[in-house]
């Protein structure tokens, strides 16, 4: 490619920005973006041409669960604690009331939080934590709780799989960034989510398995009881 003339590269950058670059080509472009400085330079140049900013007109209020869930996943309440240390006195009391306030806030913010029942324990030698899977009373949501906070290694995601009791191929239930997460159970998988089926978590490229089947190491498995 000649210096100063990047017609093809510019065209690909433009397709990436608009969003018409899809699938394999998009992922290859993103890899090139990380590895080739020239690609990033050209993309930034095109971005200066075309970066519409989203308008308030499309705003939609997120569910009240959004921030508490994000806070739990990112472990932000831990970073929020240090302010009371500055006061010196009653640190444990302050901590207790902060936790209480948080609990109240979460309860108040989620008046209709669904009830969950534990259905499986997931464990594995290579896993950073064990995970309890719980199903909502309407069977529409699956909640994962890790024994300790664990986020996917940089450049990868965790993907949750359902291994049906009849031994057929694994089905993806969703891609998550951390082992504390909630996924929506696709309607037709609900009936498969029964005794004898298994749940598993694998490590996949960011955004999930490119093939629709697990491609990375399976780190957690547990049977639905």
């Amino acid at each position, binding site marked *: 490619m000649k210096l100063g003339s990047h017609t093809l590269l510019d065209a690909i950058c433009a397709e990436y920005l608009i969003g018409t670059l899809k699938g394999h080509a998009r992922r290859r472009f993103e890899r090139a973006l990380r590895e080739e400085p020239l690609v990033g330079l050209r993309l930034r140049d095109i971005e200066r041409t075309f970066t519409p900013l989203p308008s308030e007109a499309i705003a939609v209020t997120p569910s009240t669960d959004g921030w508490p869930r*994000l806070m739990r996943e990112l472990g932000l309440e831990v970073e929020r604690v240090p302010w009371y240390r500055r006061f010196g006195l009653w640190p444990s009391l302050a901590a207790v009331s902060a936790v209480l306030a948080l609990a109240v806030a979460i309860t108040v913010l989620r008046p209709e939080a669904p009830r969950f029942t534990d259905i499986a324990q997931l464990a594995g030698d290579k896993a950073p934590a064990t995970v309890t899977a719980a199903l909502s009373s309407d069977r529409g949501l699956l909640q994962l709780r890790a024994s300790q906070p664990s986020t996917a290694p940089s450049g990868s995601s965790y993907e949750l799989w359902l291994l049906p009791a009849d031994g057929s191929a694994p089905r993806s239930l969703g891609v998550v960034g951390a082992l504390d997460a909630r996924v929506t159970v696709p309607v037709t998988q609900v009936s498969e989510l029964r005794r004898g089926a298994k749940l598993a978590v694998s490590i996949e490229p960011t955004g999930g398995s490119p093939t629709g089947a697990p491609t990375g190491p399976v780190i957690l498995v547990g049977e639905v009881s």
Partner: protein
Amino acid sequence: MIDESELKRLLSVAALRGGAAAAAFERVYRLTSPVLLGVALKIVRRRELAEEVLHDAFVKIWRNLDSFDPHGTAIGWMSAIVRNRALDLIESHDMSRVDSYHDTTRSSHLDSIDDNPEASLDRLFDWGSAEGADQSLARKRAAAVLRGCLGELDAPERQSLVLAYEHGLSHGDLAVHLQRPLGTVKTWVRRGMEHLKRCVERCGGAAT
């Protein structure tokens, strides 16, 4: 209205990871999550999926606060992360499967798209919000130039760009929706971007 300079300040506080980081990031979330959920919803079109996209995007935003380039706009950077996550999701194996379960073919999904390009243009540009007091003139001018240049494109080119960008449509989706051959649609997108870039450069409107 999102105050861009306030947003940048909050992001830089959060990036320091100190005691004030969580509160600053919460404020960022409160300010931007409605508009970013709107961005995701336009692309994935299902509420629960859009909420997942928003969640994943905010996880990524938190982890990549260091890589925000303060020369750009904060809301532009964040919405690019949301868009990328949403685009990943709609092309994943899962999504097509979920769609088929709900007995919605991609083409009936396309029928429901509101494609009044002028209304879409209004949705894509927020005249009041991006302007912090410090940089308002340059930024406002860049937005005006971009909008003007989009207006100068041939209608099919403009419509292709706006539809693809706002709804995350592929060339194939565009061809179905606009009822034109794939090759024609690809040419519209490519030429549209070329013309747009030339126009913006000629007008000196590239934001720096």
